[in-house]
């Protein structure tokens, strides 16, 4: 292949943190303890949708060992819109709910106590007066005219430049589908899943004598977490000193800035170090999931196997709030046509809100879902028109120099080479004309490897 040999790059040197890991000496956030450290537990909504009429924390406040109760009025800027830094608006998620609840498990108030057990016991004493409303859980229902509108801007989808979905338009789908020898449709869906890192969310905040806060965090993104926390606290970012960089598994589940702002507020309010670590049940039932997604494909295919038209409608279940979903749907949209050259493409991708725990980033965000649908659809096409599974992919695979539906010219393509290598790996002999194919066999341009 002619890849230049380098020195230390390309060698399987041992992990720098490996000995710490295998001897248990690596320090994770939950291993941080300070003298006088308090513990935090969250009071959460027991229902999926409702109007808050009252929060009575008096019994919890009076409980021996409780040091503070943190409610919405303690949060200087009670908006949790982590993508505000890249222009996603409007604000839609309170840090602590005070007017309405939008999902089962939504944070309402935090109990800060001398021990974790006391905090948990006191949290159970908070009396919530919430008027229950029927939840919207199904995406198709959510975007139908019959659904109650759960978002303040007047519908149940994210609005992209005035549209209730992201569009991808390339060529002329309607014309091409008329000319196809076969019209092949498929439905694909995924249920929400949990990241399930073995280390749960954890944050420890220590107020320093100079007024700064030392924040031990297992976030995947320290500056992103620092800046979003500062916006919520309404303090300059320089007041925060983020320490992290060692994470017990993330998989996209630890970019939500979900523990740091409240733990900081608790530390500021009490003047003492505070730890908030999530239970496994909170990870499962309250932390962001991968989104549930439903996709419908309509493909126009010729007898020789060429896909000439592809239309996709996709609904992605953001749950109750934005989190990272408006971004994820855009990434999803760009990947829904798949790594194939299809001259006529039509995609509508919706970011839909429901009364479910918010979804957010997870390993493969938006792409995993698209890839699953595309590759099952490719197989369905092969089976429908009676073509070999390898051939259908190889003849349609994008080549360097071709135009993708997002109107970026393909470069760095090696789909064909991996298909050929996989066939070889399992000892499957591809016919000569398929073996001869290459990602650089289109017009002789675009490729930088031959």
């Amino acid at each position, binding site marked *: 292949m002619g890849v230049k040999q380098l020195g230390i790059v390309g060698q399987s040197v041992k*992990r720098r943190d490996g000995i710490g890991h295998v001897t248990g000496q690596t320090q994770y956030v939950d291993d941080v303890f300070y003298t006088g450290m308090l513990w935090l537990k969250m009071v959460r909504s027991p229902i999926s949708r409702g109007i808050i009429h009252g929060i009575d924390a008096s019994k919890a406040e009076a409980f021996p060992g409780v040091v503070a109760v943190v409610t919405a009025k303690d949060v200087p800027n009670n908006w949790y819109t982590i993508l505000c830094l890249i222009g996603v608006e409007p604000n839609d998620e309170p840090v602590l709910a005070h007017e309405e609840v939008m999902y089962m498990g939504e944070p309402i108030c935090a109990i800060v106590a001398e021990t974790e057990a006391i905090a948990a016991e006191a949290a159970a004493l908070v009396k919530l007066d919430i008027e229950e409303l029927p939840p919207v859980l199904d995406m198709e229902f959510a975007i139908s005219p019959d659904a109650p509108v759960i978002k303040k801007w007047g519908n149940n989808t994210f609005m992209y430049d005035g549209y209730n979905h992201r569009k991808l338009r390339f060529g002329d789908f309607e014309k091409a589908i008329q000319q196809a020898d076969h019209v092949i449709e498929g439905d694909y869906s995924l249920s929400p899943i949990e990241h399930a890192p073995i280390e749960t969310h954890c944050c420890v905040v220590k107020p320093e004598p100079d007024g700064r806060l030392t924040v031990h965090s297992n976030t995947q993104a320290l500056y992103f977490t620092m800046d979003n926390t500062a916006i919520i606290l309404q303090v300059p970012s320089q007041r925060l000193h983020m320490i992290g*960089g060692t994470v017990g598994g993330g998989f996209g589940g630890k970019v939500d800035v979900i523990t740091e702002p409240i733990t900081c507020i608790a530390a500021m309010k009490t003047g003492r170090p505070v730890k908030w670590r999530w239970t496994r049940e909170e990870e499962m039932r309250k932390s962001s999931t991968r989104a549930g997604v439903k996709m419908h494909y309509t493909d126009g295919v010729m007898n020789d196997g060429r896909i000439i038209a592809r239309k996709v409608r996709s609904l992605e279940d953001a749950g109750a709030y934005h989190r990272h979903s408006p971004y994820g749907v855009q990434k999803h949209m*760009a990947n829904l046509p798949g790594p194939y050259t299809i001259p006529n493409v039509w995609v509508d991708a919706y970011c839909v809100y429901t009364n479910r725990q918010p979804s957010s980033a997870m390993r493969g965000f938006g792409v995993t879902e698209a890839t699953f649908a595309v590759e099952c659809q490719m197989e369905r096409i092969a089976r429908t028109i009676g073509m070999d599974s390898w051939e259908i992919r190889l003849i349609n695979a994008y080549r360097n120099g071709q135009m993708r539906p997002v109107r970026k010219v393909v470069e760095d393509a090696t789909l064909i080479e991996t298909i050929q290598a996989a066939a070889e790996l399992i000892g499957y002999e591809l016919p000569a004309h398929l073996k001869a194919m290459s990602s650089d066999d289109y017009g002789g341009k675009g490729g930088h490897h031959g």
Partner: protein
Amino acid sequence: MAKHYGRGIAAVNYPTGMNLGGDPTQALIFCQPTGGFSVKLASTDLGQGLKTVIAQIAAEALGVPFDSVIVDTGDTDSAPHCMGTFASRATHRVGNAVIMAANEARKALLDVAAEEMEAAPEDLVLENGEIYVKGAPERKTNVFNVALAAHFKHGKTISGRGIYLKQKSGLDPETGACDPDSTEAHATTVAEVEVDDETGEVKVLRLASAYEVGRQINPEMVKGQIVSGAVMGMSHALMETVFPYYPALDHHTYSFGEYIIPTALDIPEIESVVLEYPSSNGPYGVKGVGEMTANSPIPAIVNAIYDAVGVWVTDLPVTPEKVLRALEERSLETH
């Protein structure tokens, strides 16, 4: 009633970096008086091995021994901005920033060395911490001596600043036209399964994959991602959901007692080959590999189930219940 064998394939691509770009990362490097190099990053290692591969990239770019490079991650007081570890971006973005910083530090080092050696900096070769004049290997010194001289004789800093930013692309709301990625990695997975038509259970026998990742910085760690993804993808395909009756909330999981992920008893035979076609913009040609490894197994397994028993179960996870219902539906159709 029988067990049916099936084989399915899936070929996938995966974008490197945040969709549309606009996600910078910075690095600072400074040289200590005795020639150690400290790389200051606010990046995070989730277990994929960033701390190690960045040390490899820095040592390669600086031309110094691996052990003389210290990588300090995870402190916003001591290191400049990093967007974070996600979107298969860390090795690509951080690696590029580190190479840029290393080039600046290396140049500062060689300028001092040139003065010390009375040679032109462009005539100097720096390899594994040793410095010599091109064509005259007897005229030599090393990083230790030059670093000491820089600090205590010349009053010069040996340090470097690096940043990598893919400018944020616009997106046309009418057509979706945009530049979504820095590069694309690719993979093909072949899944072999056994489907029990009596219980609906699917056993994955084998996942064999070819991955193209640009350039491997640390092949064992690339393999670590491939095996990791194979198992997570299998799990996603067959086992996982927090809402077993989605969109209903019933039986919402709350522990590993109901939320089933694979154990050491559940893993199939996993094989892989790795191809290297260096990308034009990655550090030494890197493409992101962290996320994609969990993608290709999913459709490969679903396609293998179709191959085995002739039914499409395209609502994940493919539980035994769904397989049995699909088989029953088909038998009703054919009778």
